[in-house]
């Protein structure tokens, strides 16, 4: 068995892994990227539409253009990577086992690990649509890969379930390839992706968006012949008698993404309820020296935000190796971050009390859309640490607030910080 020893191993060679590896390499540490696909780049390669790079490069790029810049930089820096290589195990003492068809099983001993495996799409099983299992049911990202990379069309006439950005973008893409998209069906009473995509991907092409409906039956035994959609009430229970049949040969599911947690969980890292691993303000998981970034940590709206987070993970891994590795420094006491009213989750999950003098970047999402709000940070005794006005919130937009908590005169004994998104008091008065 081939054995390797490196400073930092990055699992996943997509946008997150590349940005993190570049930072580590620039700090003169040796770094190895393990990628299971046959080339570097990850999912950004199949997102051939534009709209990327405005934060990172101050210009608008397509997905492939965006990630090509990072691939080029990785090559220039001579960063080591292994393609077609699947990690099968990470141990809690940071030994990695992987396989590829050139070397067979390999072992990598490493001082720090950066988890950058991304996320995967929820499938039919996750939303329990009854019926036969005919050909013609795909996830939206799978269809995107077929159409944009492999060069196949998965069908001719489509219904897309879920109005997230991926669902709407693939609707336009398929229309441009001469296919017919009969409808985009959304269980929520509102579109779940960006308005920009609703306008430019659906309205521009007259594709109906049917909200408060979901697919309740798939017709066809060998091949999809159509779907039944039903209206849902406030509790998402279907309304009997509201059924409509839509003929189509393909159903695409764009019903959410979940971080790839398997390796992380088996390594013994704690996984948070709402998705990826539990991390502290340094993006370090509950295993010392193991960091997480990108969509394996939390699903981001934009690759630019993935890059920013991955750079932080890279810097923190470098800091770990230079200042903490092999020094047996006990983890200092922690403060828990809690998702309060109308907050779905918050990252980081934990803050090291010893880091209170540093900037902490909080990222979170709301559960439902709302307008004229107050974002509040409270301690465990209900004292308000920080508040900020906000004109609107939507679940599809990740919110980010950078705070140096020491500037807010907080009680040094606090056990937790709760973030809530509540209506602004003056709105209540106005509406009286």
């Amino acid at each position, binding site marked *: 068995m081939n054995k390797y020893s490196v400073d930092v191993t990055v699992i996943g060679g997509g946008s997150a892994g590349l940005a993190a590896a570049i930072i580590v390499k620039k700090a003169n540490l040796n770094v190895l990227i393990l990628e299971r696909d046959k*080339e570097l*780049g990850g999912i950004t*390669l199949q997102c*051939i*539409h*534009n709209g990327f790079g405005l934060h990172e490069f101050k210009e*608008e790029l*397509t*997905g*492939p*253009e965006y*990630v*090509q810049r990072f*691939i080029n930089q990785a090559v220039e820096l001579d960063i080591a990577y292994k393609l077609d290589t699947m990690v099968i195990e990470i141990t809690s003492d940071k030994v990695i086992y992987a396989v590829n068809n050139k070397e067979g099983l390999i072992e990598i001993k490493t001082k720090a690990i950066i988890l950058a495996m991304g996320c995967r799409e929820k499938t039919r099983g996750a939303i329990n649509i009854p019926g036969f299992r005919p050909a013609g049911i795909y996830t939206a990202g799978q269809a995107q890969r077929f*159409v*944009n*990379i*492999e*060069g196949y069309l998965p069908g001719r006439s489509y219904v897309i379930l879920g109005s997230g950005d991926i669902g709407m973008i693939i609707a336009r*893409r398929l229309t*441009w390839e001469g296919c017919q998209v009969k409808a985009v069906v959304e269980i929520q009473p509102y579109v779940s992706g*960006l*308005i*920009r995509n*609703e*306008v*430019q991907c659906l*309205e*521009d092409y007259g594709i109906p968006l049917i909200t408060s409906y979901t697919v309740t039956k798939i017709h066809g035994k060998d091949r999809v012949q159509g779907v039944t959609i039903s209206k849902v009430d406030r509790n998402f229970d279907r309304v009997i008698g509201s059924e409509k049949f839509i003929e189509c040969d393909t159903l695409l599911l764009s019903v959410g993404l979940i971080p790839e947690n398997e390796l992380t969980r088996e390594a013994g890292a704690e996984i948070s309820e709402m998705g990826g691993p539990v991390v502290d303000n340094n993006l370090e998981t509950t295993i010392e020296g193991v960091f997480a970034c990108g969509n394996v940590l939390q699903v981001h709206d934009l690759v630019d935000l993935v890059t920013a987070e991955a750079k932080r993970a890279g810097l923190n891994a470098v800091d770990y190796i230079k200042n903490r590795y092999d020094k047996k420094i006990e983890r200092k006491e922690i403060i828990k971050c809690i998702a309060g009213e109308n907050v779905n989750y918050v990252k980081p999950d934990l803050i090291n009390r010893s880091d209170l003098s540093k900037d902490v970047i909080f990222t979170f999402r709301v559960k439902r859309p709302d307008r004229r709000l107050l974002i509040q940070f409270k301690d465990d005794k209900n004292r308000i640490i920080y508040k900020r006005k906000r*004109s*609107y919130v*939507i679940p599809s*937009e990740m919110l980010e607030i950078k705070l140096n908590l020491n500037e807010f005169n907080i009680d040094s004994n606090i056990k937790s910080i709760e973030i809530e998104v509540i209506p602004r008091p003056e709105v209540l008065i106005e509406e009286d």
Partner: protein
Amino acid sequence: MMSESKIPEGSKEIRCIVCPTGCLVHVENVNGELVIEGHSCNRGEEYAREEFIAPKRILTTTIRVENGFLPLIPVRSNTPIPKEKLQETLKEIAGTKVKAPIKMGDILIKNVIGLDANIIASRDLIEA
């Protein structure tokens, strides 16, 4: 080429895409003067004006590749294309084949369908 930004007749409700607020902007040609209402910022007003006079889009699609590491190369127009020309441009691109190797930024179709726009490669693609 299109005639220089002639103001179309009539009116239109345009949903602004500049930010997630999504203002509904009313744009109307009143005796050759544009009346724009409902926006809440300058960028929104500018977007609605352009969208009313001459809507344009960056076109992103793929071109078949002979002898490539992958069968397709993702491409885009280097500048926005008039919305009403997108269909024709897509047809032209669908009938095109290119050869690997390709470098990001390579011009694969120059002045596509006579427009002042090139179709360029979005990534590198090596030979098979």
